[in-house]
């Protein structure tokens, strides 16, 4: 079978890139121990509003300087939509959804996770500087998806 030299080159480059990226993936997972965030628990999506702690979403101070934000992401809002915390606090977000898949990203932070009905997503971040962060839904969730946002106000 005659393979044109350009095609051979293209295949080699593609194959080479594949090997390099697979190697990088293997190194990251096995060598550096980097893993994607795992689910932090399961919940019956139809009983979200009656299962603690999601029966009372909000910001709670669990220990001095440590806060927990229990949030429900539903079409098409975050509950609570506004999160106020003092600067320097370590915050753990625990979010679930009773309806469809949403995403949550808090701007300028590393909080970026999918919110899947039936699962609880947990992400941690320490807010050091006083500023406002936008909370956005980055997974298409219906006709009101582009209205789905909230705010984290660090005081």
């Amino acid at each position, binding site marked *: 079978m005659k393979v044109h030299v350009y095609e051979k080159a293209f295949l080699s480059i593609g*194959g080479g890139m594949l*090997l390099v990226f697979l*190697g990088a993936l*293997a*190194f990251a997972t*096995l*060598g550096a*121990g980097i893993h994607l965030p795992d689910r932090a628990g399961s919940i019956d999506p139809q009983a979200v509003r009656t299962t603690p702690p999601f029966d009372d979403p909000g910001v709670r101070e669990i220990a*001095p300087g440590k806060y927990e934000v229990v949030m429900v992401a539903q079409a098409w809002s975050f509950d609570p939509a506004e999160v106020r915390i003092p600067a320097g606090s370590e915050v753990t977000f625990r979010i679930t959804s009773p309806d469809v898949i949403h995403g949550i990203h808090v701007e300028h932070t590393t909080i970026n996770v999918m919110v899947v009905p039936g699962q609880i997503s947990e992400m941690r971040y320490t807010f050091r500087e006083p500023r406002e962060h936008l909370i956005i839904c980055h997974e298409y969730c219906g006709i009101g998806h582009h209205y789905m946002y909230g705010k984290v106000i660090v005081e």
Partner: protein
Amino acid sequence: MIRTRFLLAGAALALLAALAAVAVGIRLAALPELHGTLLDPPLPAAEFALTSADGGAVGPQDFRGRLVVLFFGFTNCPDVCPLTMHRLGSAMEELGDRADQVQVILVSVDPERDPPAKVDEYAKRFHPSFIGVTGSDDELRTVTSSYGIYYARTEVEGALGYTVDHSASTLVLDRNGGLRMIWPFDTTPEGMASDLRYLIRR
């Protein structure tokens, strides 16, 4: 008939998978005889800011890039603390020129009798590079609990008045500030040095 060329390409891909599996095997099997509990992958270790001898705030996050060894004790400790500190000093001697990759911090859980200057002076008796810090009871409670350590003031008879019972484990953080190793109380200096050498290599 399979062309040699395609055989080669397939072999390359399978080679990658084999290398990955072998890398894992090496990572697991090449663990030398370790003397403490190795946490792999490392667990998050809390940052803190306790008071040092010059009044500044010191915590493990100030020593990123080096291994940080944390021990919780107090200067009036009759046996556990001097023994552990002495062993840590010997381990540092054994490390020789690698010792600059390790920073030992002694945290005093007896702030009433141990001002920062006293803890630091006590720590430096065992090795000049050791640092001693302490803080208020509130700060200490948060720090010790987050490291799985407890301390409790216990009244005793005699001139000492009270002693402080505390966990005797020594904790080792890696260069990125993750908790890597927990040594039980009776770890030997040779064991500590060997484990530190392993962690320095990683």
